[in-house]
């Protein structure tokens, strides 16, 4: 059995998954000032009477690190940046402990200017004096040659708690994002370590010495030990949980839009068949654009608790939330109040909802029910509009080869899967007013925890081979190997897949459950003075985000049970 646990903004959802599907589920309030308390409470609720050895693992998804960033509760981080020519690295300053140093590598990975050890030593001693314990080291083009980053790390020695090197974060090119990603990894390291250490200790103390896996932003998981190297990968795993939770119900050969409608926001993502779309470069976390591999998701400030107002005779939804719906004691009418007025079977104080909607109705000069319908429809339409914009943005994504342009796949969702608090109500109305076929994800209220539980270990790897320089590199893996002139694309692909498998297994995957694929495969003749001097291969491979195969039968069972369920008749917990 597997435990899936998703610490959300309001609730912490937990499920215990067995061969029969959800064996047990629970929802406990999230205790923000002591997350361990709600995690533990949730675990207790689902493990009561379960023998510890029956539980294979615990998969945890939490907004802990995301929130720490949003609230700017981060410890000081020293950044050492070797930029060389180009944009002024000052533009990417992360904090006061930010140092731009000598050293430059070009696009092929050739050293243009060496680093100055004395410079680094001075910075290191300054950082130590100022009590900075976490350091990020980033060079421009370090993914083509990490020499400078490694040299700087050696000079820093073991005087710091955590030193992260830019080239280990991602094989993608983007120096400013590499800086932001290194910074965030270093910044969340202690928060991450402290929390998960506590979870581990507390499991052990209670006789549940099960492996902990952590959900990442790309919808995959990694072992806790692996996460300590790059804790930044867990940032933004919230939306990933709900996408993974909807995955079992997606239709093969069809594009699906996933909507997780919460109180404050609606998170949306796209599934192509049963594979979620990834963000082209990496997640955006607040003001930071990063190289953190993440699902392509969009967060719209519109949910069940969004404030409804009338201004100059026009209806306005949000974008803010002033509190819960009036039915639950909030100060402002919300779409949830509209749903209640429309007579849907929702708990709460119906009279309060009517009172709120009456204000709206009066301002609009409409009868109460019509006003409520208008509010609710506006919320549905607003979400659908934003979803269409997102699809359009995905399809407008640039391509770089003739083939890609002519054969460019256009995402065209025909189905919508809805989950989150008010899912059944929204789904029902969206089905009526849109051309989509709309379904509610079974167990819509804990689907995110199911998603976390069933997510497979994922990872990505980029291999560069430059036969002129005679070198193959996989920067994320610190892999470097000399190659001969006769190296081929086939060899490059098999080498990349081999390295990927090792990486995935090390991060917690089982060797027989790896669905790998080649994402990018480019090959260039390098010609100098009209002669071919070498070949350049670029191969990017990944373990596809998806569900663990062992639970395929469970997933199928869940699908049979729920796929035919009519819209809006979601199972209550």
């Amino acid at each position, binding site marked *: 059995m597997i435990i899936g646990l998703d610490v959300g903004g309001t609730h912490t959802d937990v499920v215990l998954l067995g061969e029969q599907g959800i064996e047990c589920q629970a929802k406990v309030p999230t205790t923000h000032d002591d997350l361990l308390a709600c995690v533990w409470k949730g675990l207790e609720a689902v493990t009561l009477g379960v023998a510890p050895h029956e539980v294979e693992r615990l998969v945890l998804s939490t907004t802990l690190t995301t929130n720490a960033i949003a609230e700017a509760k981060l410890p000081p981080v020293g950044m050492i940046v070797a930029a060389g020519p*180009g944009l002024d690295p000052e*533009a990417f300053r992360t904090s006061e402990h930010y140092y731009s140093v000598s050293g430059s590598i070009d*696009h092929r990975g050739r050293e243009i200017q060496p680093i100055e050890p004395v410079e680094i030593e001075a910075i290191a001693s300054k950082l130590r004096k100022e009590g900075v314990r976490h350091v990020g080291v980033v060079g421009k083009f370090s993914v083509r040659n990490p020499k400078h980053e490694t040299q700087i790390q050696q000079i820093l020695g073991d005087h710091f708690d955590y030193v992260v090197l830019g080239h280990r974060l991602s094989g*993608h090119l*983007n120096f400013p994002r590499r800086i932001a990603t290194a910074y965030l990894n270093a910044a969340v390291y202690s928060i991450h370590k402290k929390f998960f250490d506590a979870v581990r200790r507390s499991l052990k103390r209670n006789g549940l010495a099960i492996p902990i896996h952590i959900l990442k932003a790309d919808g995959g998981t990694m072992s806790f030990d692996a996460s300590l190297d790059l804790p930044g990968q867990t940032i933004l795993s919230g939306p990933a949980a709900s996408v993974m939770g909807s995955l079992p119900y997606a239709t093969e050969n069809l594009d699906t839009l996933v909507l997780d409608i919460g109180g404050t926001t609606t998170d949306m993502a796209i599934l192509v068949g049963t594979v979620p779309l990834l963000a082209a470069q990496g997640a955006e976390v607040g003001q930071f654009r990063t190289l953190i591999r993440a699902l392509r998701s969009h967060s719209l400030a519109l949910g069940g608790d969004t404030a409804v107002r009338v201004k100059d005779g026009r209806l306005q939804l949000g974008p803010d939330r002033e509190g819960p719906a009036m039915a639950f004691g909030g100060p402002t009418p919300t779409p949830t109040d509209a749903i209640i007025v429309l007579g849907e079977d929702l708990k709460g104080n119906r009279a309060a909802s009517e009172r709120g909607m009456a204000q709206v109705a009066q301002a609009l000069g409409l009868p109460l029910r019509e006003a409520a319908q208008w509010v609710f429809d506006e919320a549905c339409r607003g979400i659908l509009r934003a979803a269409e914009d997102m699809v359009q943005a995905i399809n407008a994504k*640039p391509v770089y*080869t*003739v083939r890609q*342009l002519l054969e460019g796949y256009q995402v065209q969702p025909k189905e919508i899967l809805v989950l989150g608090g008010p899912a059944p109500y929204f789904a029902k109305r969206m089905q009526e007013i849109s051309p989509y076929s709309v379904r509610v994800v079974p167990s819509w209220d804990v689907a995110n925890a199911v998603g976390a539980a069933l997510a497979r270990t994922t990872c990505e790897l980029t291999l560069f081979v430059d036969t002129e320089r005679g070198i193959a590199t996989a920067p994320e893996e610190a892999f470097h190997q000399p190659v001969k002139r006769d190296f081929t694309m086939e060899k490059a692909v098999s080498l990349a897949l081999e390295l990927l498998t090792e990486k995935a297994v090390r991060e917690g995957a089982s060797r027989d459950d790896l669905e790998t694929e080649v994402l990018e495969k480019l090959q260039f*003749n390098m010609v100098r003075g009209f002669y071919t001097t070498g070949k350049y291969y670029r191969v990017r491979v990944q373990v596809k985000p998806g569900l663990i195969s062992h639970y395929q039968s469970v997933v199928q069972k869940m699908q049979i049970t729920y796929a035919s369920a009519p819209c809006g008749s979601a199972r209550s917990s």
Partner: protein
Amino acid sequence: MLRAAYKTGLVIFPAFDWAISPTHPEREERLLYTQDQIFEEGLLDIQGILEFKPDLATIEDVQRVHFCAPDERSVLTESHLISAGGAMTIAKALMAHKIDRGFALVRPPGHHAMRVVHGARGFCNINIEAIMIEYLRDVYGVDRIAIVDTDCHHGDGTQDIYWHDPDTLFISIHQDGRTLYPGSGFHHELGGPTAMGATINIPLPPKTSEEGFLRAMEKIVLPIVQEFQPELIINSAGQDNHYTDPITNMNFSAQGYATLTSMLQPHIAVLEGGYSIEGALPYVNVGIILALAGLDYSKVKEPDYDPKRIRQPEETNAYIDRLAEEILGYWRRCPEFIAKNRATKEFAQRERTIYYDTDNILENQKERLRVCPVCSGVLSIDSLTDRGYHIFAIHIPRKACPECVALGYEWFDAVHGRSYDRVFLQDRTTNRYLVRKA
């Protein structure tokens, strides 16, 4: 976070799966390192820099500009349509006010493609700037446009297409034609009888460095552009003036290109040549993008940049000053020359031989223009290649007077079809494109 002073649009289309041949300079690898540099610098994350996916140009878009013999599909590939389409994408974004400026980093290039196309010249099949410009005129009604061609080679194709058009100022600044392909672009080439002064050529001596380029910009290009009062400024941004370029002999640098761009302030830059794919393109392109966006480019430098080593010969500045004086002198008298042509000539003819170096075709052209007293005049071209292919093409310009329009159709009806493989009529007043086969 960095924010661009001018909203700048980019189309990056490196065509990683298209090449003239595996070892040709115009091949898959050409924009690879440029793209790497743009990605690594994170330029696409800067607020106000927007990347667009290129559109595909259509055959109709090509027919506004060219006479392709025997037809369009025979002389171009999908890559050419994407390249022209990429330039059009930038133009559309500009017209829709999504951007203030834009740069189409596309390949293959186009500025050696003339009005008649039998094949590829100087790696160019169709003229991507001209296709973009005529699209702008047709769809958005843009009239006066200045093209400043900063490729090291004379933009002879663009010059040919706009030779008779008084509303398109074409300025080419290039290495002296006596020392480089295509061997044209001398300073006395000023445009056709009814459009003199709308073509300006600035041949610079080999080894001219940024000092000389910027001097020519300041003394010749900017004053003429300013007086022309264009609605749009287009830069044919070839980057082969660079000191590391393998097929030219100039000493320009990334800093120089960026400064030139911020002096010219083009609305649209379109990449042309440039074959120092490692030593120059990544740095020059980043410099141009930053300059367009109004961002600081002072730290963009080639790894081996040393202004002292690439300093131009002593006499270059004096040469440029002399050239400026002569060009401006002629140029000021152009209205007078046009008036004289109109008063003395009814028709003007020229004969020339055009060599297609890439496809090894030799073309003989007889061009005949009606020196119209009102408009720029209807034009006919009799074109015969050494492969025996013979066409007759009639171009009725955008603002042709009724008489010239009528004469164009008269010519089309009168021409003896059996003497030619194809007879074409391109009527830009109504956008009709007619073809008669033998």
